[in-house]
């Protein structure tokens, strides 16, 4: 956990990519889940944030 946080602070690719991946996965789940309309409403924003973050952080150093 400490390594993950320190990677985030030092702008390393690994932890940031993991964060972006979690956001995309969460967004897609929210888009297609059958439980709450509110989750569906916010799904696009979460997916978009994750995708844009993924594109940016894939240029960070290892």
């Amino acid at each position, binding site marked *: 956990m400490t390594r993950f946080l320190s990677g985030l602070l030092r702008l390393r690719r690994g932890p940031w*990519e993991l964060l972006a*991946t979690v956001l*995309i*996965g969460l*967004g*897609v789940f929210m*888009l*297609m*889940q*059958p439980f709450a*309309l509110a989750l*569906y*409403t*916010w*799904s*696009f924003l979460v*997916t*978009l944030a*994750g*995708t844009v973050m*993924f*594109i940016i952080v894939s240029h960070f150093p290892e």
Partner: protein
Amino acid sequence: MPDPVAVIASATPDPIARKVRGLSDRAIAWLFVAPTIFLLLAINIFPLIWTVRLSFTNYRANRPNEEVEWVGLRNYIRILTDDGIWANMQTTAHFLFWTLFFQVLLGFTLAWLINRKFKGNDLLTTLIVLPMMLSPAVVGNFWTFLYQPQIGLVNYMVELLTGTPASSFSMLGAGGYAKWSIIIVDTWMWTPFVMLICLAGLRSIPDYIYEAAEIDRASKWRQFWTITIPMVLPFLMLAVLFRGIENFKMFDMVVLLTGGGPGNETLLASIDLKREAFEKWRTGYSSAYAIILFVTVFGLASIYVKALNKVKER
């Protein structure tokens, strides 16, 4: 006899020849790549940017002379608060999950069985691969006949096996079978594709690895989990990526089979999008819809490519 190269070179007008001779290697490389870049920009990038722009307007393609109003995020808000579109997303997820599940399961099993050496192996592979060579339109049409309640083979087989009268139910009609009917057809058509990719993976495993495992007295079960599965995994993931993206935008086959019905039971997001864009002509609204689907597929593909690279590095 004159040198043909010299003849061709002399045919180039002097001003052009002088210009080409003065170009650097980098400039010549750009000259060759430029047509491809131009086509990519014209066919992919420009329409994407244009769609993003349209998604913030109330533009209707059937009324090109009407004044276009900038509506901001209204289209996005309407789509993301619509119960109907939410239901379509769930239908798409159901279709996507089950088709991928069955295709991977059956595709891998078939590849594993076909990979053994036996007589008629090649003929069997060719026969299994036949469905994916057919056009989705043809597949949609002949499965419609197979699913016919009165004359269809499927209902006849069900009657034969269970005693349920053939004309008492319809696979493509009301009754909850329609969702599963399209999954069956897609699985029938595309399992061979997954099988071929898995077969390539299985055939790329060198025999000496299994021989070494035999010497170490590893059981067949252990060989399967520690050699076969890890070495086929990148191929399997590639198959899931291809099929996942394809099935997310599945359109033709489902339109021919059910047209999105009965009711909205098989209305996938792609079919709904087409209706909004080219039947209701709400171009701005459907552009926003398309962007939402695009970002979802793009995000998923990004994760998947990353996972694929990780598996390959192992």
